[in-house]
């Protein structure tokens, strides 16, 4: 599977001159900055800096763009931890435990954990990509709507895990979110729930809704506080604590490896990617933990699970881009433009004929992982200083950024209106013990779930037995059932054996 001749050529390409590496450092910093500002997406950063790549060769262009991608994946987690704003859907699960950690004065550790797991996830992702790029791409081609629906259902089961203290309210939140996610035109061209408002025809913008539900609603709760972290002693930015968080992340290889593998597999599925992988990884880690109730209240394992998955998704999406020429999301779509600008078509022929170039891109990403760790450790102290800003300045600043960011995401006033509506809804839901994450997950997955279910229905002609003829679907559903029933089953077996 590994072409060692091409490996040698790839190393020559990368280390024959220092030039390709000159663009990696600026790329990582651009990604980190764009990822850390709510509303500025990684794909936006890549699109803005795309014209610069006209003066670069193909390998150098790809290194520059993948560096932005890598930096941005980590940057999204920074705002999720410090401000409870998951600037992208891939950092949603990071906010579940990262922000509570920050409020407990453990912001240094949380950022260190996120960096450690991001580094681990990204590194492992590219190792797997190096070894298994062709099998992964073949697997992706076998996935149809039924399999995609099964993956979505898996993501939706997280709603039940995040129900909080009230099962009924948690499920209402999640399924109501699912309904909100289906507002607008469906794949049949039928518009539902739009109230004749034009901006709703495309549906409720998911990321602005997420910003409103998490960030703005939380800021209303902060109004009467002086600082995010009340205890002055804990407000300090401490590099040893950041390093301790980083080391802690590396001491949990099982959580990181599971997260990374989920990230690669789900990240490789076009259109699903990191927005689902971080939720699946979080859910699986929570389910397998002896103390699942501690999740959502600042459990470091929650941050690790999410960050390892969303970072390794990058490698998964690169697999489909390189091996099939299919972009899995906005960021890889911009990379596809670089392919076009260099008259290269991704796919099996590209992998066969230019294996050295593919390997060079993968090896360069190993280098980026180490650079990310160094740059992250240097920049985190600066980013963590947010907790020192008084709340009376922080709240208006963050709210303004969320509103501007939502405008930047949608390109119209639908973004700010969505943030406003969902911030008020989120505040009242939180106050009355409804699950805010559940509603957000529902909105995120609603459209995808309906679309895949509809396609499955059309292909099968309405026969449920069709799912039984799809081995991958069955495997996913069996894994899903096992992941749900694993712990109760283990408890049952243990009690039976203990009884004897």
């Amino acid at each position, binding site marked *: 599977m590994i072409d060692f001749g091409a490996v040698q050529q790839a190393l020559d390409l990368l280390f024959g001159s220092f030039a390709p590496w000159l663009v990696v450092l600026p790329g990582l910093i651009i990604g980190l900055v764009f990822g850390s500002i709510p509303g500025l997406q990684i794909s*936006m950063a890549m699109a803005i800096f795309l014209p610069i790549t006209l003066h670069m060769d193909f390998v150098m262009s790809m290194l520059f763009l993948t560096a932005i991608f890598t930096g941005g994946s980590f940057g999204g987690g920074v705002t999720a931890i410090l401000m409870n704003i998951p600037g992208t859907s891939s950092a949603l699960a990071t906010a579940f435990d990262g922000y509570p950690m920050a409020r407990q004065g453990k912001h240094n550790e949380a950022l260190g954990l996120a960096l450690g797991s991001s580094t681990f996830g990204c590194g492992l992702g590219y190792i797997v990509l190096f070894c298994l790029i062709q099998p992964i791409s073949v697997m992706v081609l076998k996935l149809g709507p039924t399999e995609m629906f099964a993956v979505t259902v898996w993501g939706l089961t997280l709603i039940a895990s995040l129900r909080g203290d009230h099962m009924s309210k948690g499920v209402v939140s999640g399924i109501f979110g699912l309904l909100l996610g289906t507002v607008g035109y469906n794949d049949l061209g039928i518009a539902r729930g739009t109230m004749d408002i034009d901006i709703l025809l495309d549906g409720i913008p998911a990321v602005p809704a997420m910003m409103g539900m998490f960030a703005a609603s939380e800021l209303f709760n902060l*109004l009467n506080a002086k600082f995010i972290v009340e205890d002055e002693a804990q407000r300090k930015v401490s590099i040893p604590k950041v390093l301790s968080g980083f080391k802690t992340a590396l001491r949990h290889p099982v959580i990181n490896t599971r997260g990374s593998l989920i990230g690669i597999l789900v990240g490789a599925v076009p259109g699903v990617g990191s927005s689902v992988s971080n939720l699946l990884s979080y859910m699986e880690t929570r389910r397998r933990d002896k103390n699942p109730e501690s999740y959502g209240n600042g459990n470091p394992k929650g941050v690790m699970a999410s960050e390892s998955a969303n970072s390794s998704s990058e490698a998964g999406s690169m697999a489909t881009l390189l091996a099939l020429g299919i972009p899995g999301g906005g960021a890889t779509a911009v990379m596809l433009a670089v392919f076009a600008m260099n008259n290269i078509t991704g796919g099996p022929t590209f992998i066969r004929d230019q294996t050295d170039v593919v390997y060079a891109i993968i090896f360069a990403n190993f280098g980026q992982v180490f650079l990310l760790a160094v740059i992250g450790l240097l920049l985190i102290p600066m980013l963590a200083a947010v907790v020192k800003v008084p709340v009376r300045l922080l709240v208006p600043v963050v709210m303004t950024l969320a509103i501007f960011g939502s*405008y930047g995401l949608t390109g119209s006033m639908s973004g700010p209106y969505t943030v406003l509506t969902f911030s008020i809804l989120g505040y009242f839901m939180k106050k009355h013990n409804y699950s805010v994450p559940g509603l957000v997950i529902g909105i995120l997955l609603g459209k995808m779930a309906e679309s895949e279910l509809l396609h499955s229905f059309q292909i099968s002609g309405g026969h449920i037995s069709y799912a039984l003829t799809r081995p991958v679907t069955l495997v996913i559903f069996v894994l899903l059932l096992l992941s749900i029933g694993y712990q109760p089953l283990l408890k049952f077996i243990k009690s039976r054996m203990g009884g004897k």
Partner: protein
Amino acid sequence: MNIRSRLPEIILAGLFLILSCWYLNDAYSASASTENLLLILPAAIVVICLCLWIIGRALYEIVKAGPDQADDEEEEKEKKSVSVFGAMSILAGFVLSMDWIGFDAATFLFMIALMFLQGERRPLWLSAFPAVFAILVSLFFEYMIPYPMQMLLGKEFLEKLI
């Protein structure tokens, strides 16, 4: 548990119930085909049933708890939430006015109002910080995003100012 503390919960569950019923009806009116209602119908039914259960349980607990009693803790919370409703109104004013008076001016006014609400009274902080931040954030997004933004002063004026 008294009726005052339970009422917002009932209203919220009622809101979900009404919205789900309306959405189901709207989707059904748009098209009664199986394909259109494949996900919406079962999902809406689950939400409707659970909302009825939540409302019913809350009403039962109100009846069981008997007449209202003054709850100091609740009253304290409500006093605290005055600023929350104020902040919500200011945010609503900001969002609804930004397309009308311009992103820069709306941001400036929003910052002043929210900082004032939170107890900031130093004149320099109340004027200089919102002005500088509003200019910087407006210019930054004006340059970074490819969509036109309504501005009171305009990019050229703000650039000259800097």
